């Protein structure tokens, strides 16, 4: 095996393109998972089985089927019903939706962790239900679980290469394309491997800083 620095420099323009797409997936996918996960968590608290039962079934289904299958389903099956999105949009929705079924559990733990006295104080002040949620319960719940949500962002980063399967050119997609065109596999794959480690490490540093800030 020979290491060829010129292959690295040839790959770099493609790498930057791929990095940008990977980060796009990560940021947008995280936002989708945070938003939709919160909606799931709140729906699971609606005091009627007509809501909690279907939401429970749907989220269990999504959580317990492979992300790759979901990606293929959204990318290849939905167009048959004339629903088409770009590969990137489909990928972001799929990965965000998949992770929302995990973040919902994090939110649930956070909401249940808010002391019952907070609900009682909100009742004693006659705060409307919506205001109780937005001003009292959720700020405390989210603060408790922000580090746990962050861990899922790092997990999600490691799942982003799956989007290659639906033609999204994120880092792995760019590396594979380059390899196949130039018959040089070692350099591009090593470059993106290092990039994944660096991003994960930076994210975990940011997360620890966040945890420290929230501890006070």
């Amino acid at each position, binding site marked *: 095996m020979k290491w060829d620095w010129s292959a690295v420099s040839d790959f770099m323009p493609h790498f930057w393109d791929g990095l940008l797409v990977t980060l796009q997936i990560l940021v947008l996918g995280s936002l989708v998972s945070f938003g939709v996960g919160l909606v799931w968590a709140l729906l699971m608290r609606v005091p009627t089985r007509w809501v909690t039962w279907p939401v429970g079934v749907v989220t269990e289904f999504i959580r317990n089927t492979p992300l790759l299958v979901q990606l293929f389903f959204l990318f290849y099956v939905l167009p048959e019903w004339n629903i088409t999105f770009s590969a990137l949009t489909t990928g972001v929705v799929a990965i965000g939706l998949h992770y929302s079924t995990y973040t919902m559990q994090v939110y649930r733990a956070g909401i249940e962790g808010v*002391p019952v*006295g*907070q609900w*009682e*104080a909100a*009742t*004693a*002040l*006659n*705060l*409307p239900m919506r*205001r109780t949620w937005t*001003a*009292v319960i959720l*700020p*405390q719940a989210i*603060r408790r679980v922000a580090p746990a949500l962050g861990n899922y962002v790092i997990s999600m980063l490691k799942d982003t290469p799956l989007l290659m399967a639906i033609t999204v050119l994120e880092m792995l997609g760019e590396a594979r394309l380059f390899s196949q065109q130039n018959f040089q596999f070692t350099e591009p794959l090593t470059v993106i491997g290092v990039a994944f480690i660096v991003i994960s490490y930076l994210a975990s540093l940011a997360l620890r800083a966040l945890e420290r800030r929230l501890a006070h």
Partner: protein
Amino acid sequence: MPTDTLPNPEKSPERSSGELIRLEQVTKRFGDNTVLDHLDFSVDAGKHVTLIGPSGSGKTTILRLLMTLLKPDEGTITVDGQKLFPATEKERREVRKQIGMVFQQFNLFPNMSVLRNITEAPVTVLGMSKDEAVERAKGLLDMVGLADKCDARPAQLSGGQQQRVAIARALAMRPKVLLLDEVTSALDPELVAGVLDLLRDIARTTDITMLCVTHEMNFARDISDQVLMFDSGRVIEAGPPEKIFSEPEHDRTREFLSAVL
């Protein structure tokens, strides 16, 4: 003390006389345990009533029923002529506007500044303008001796300071009724006096009706118009504090008082 910031300064005749709270045949069970057993009692407007008795005798349950944190299994509860139970949630919201509560564990909102703890409900529930709410909150903080703590977080305050903020927060809603649920029980001993002195002031200078569950018998003697002795979900003895504390009629009252005094 700036009296213009105190709630209910207007002493209308129909408010300061007559019945404000009425419980009729109220029963509350937790599983097989009957905490309140067909309880009847009423409180006149402006009166200060202290509930005493051994733990588990149902005192706190009454406050929690009045705050609608619990629902009775049977019976009716009326506040100022309006039904609290049985009633729809919407009717209950209306009645609840007249009731404030201070908790044993303070229950301040830790995610808000001291000032916003106090302005939150006046702004969102009473529709008060933000400026007015802030001004009133500052007046109340001044009254409770914490004017310099506006921007502090509850976690930065001592227990006694937190409880005084909680009292200011309850008063900001201008309640007719203030429920005090063992408000000094969670405090370090040296912080108790400050909170009780504040409550004495409020009892003396306002016409808020107060229902108080406490183990501080001297405080109860000072502020109460009436003391109710509870045992096993029933009122076994009631009367003015001089009588209950000096010449109780019931054996259980005597036993209880000799244990706590």
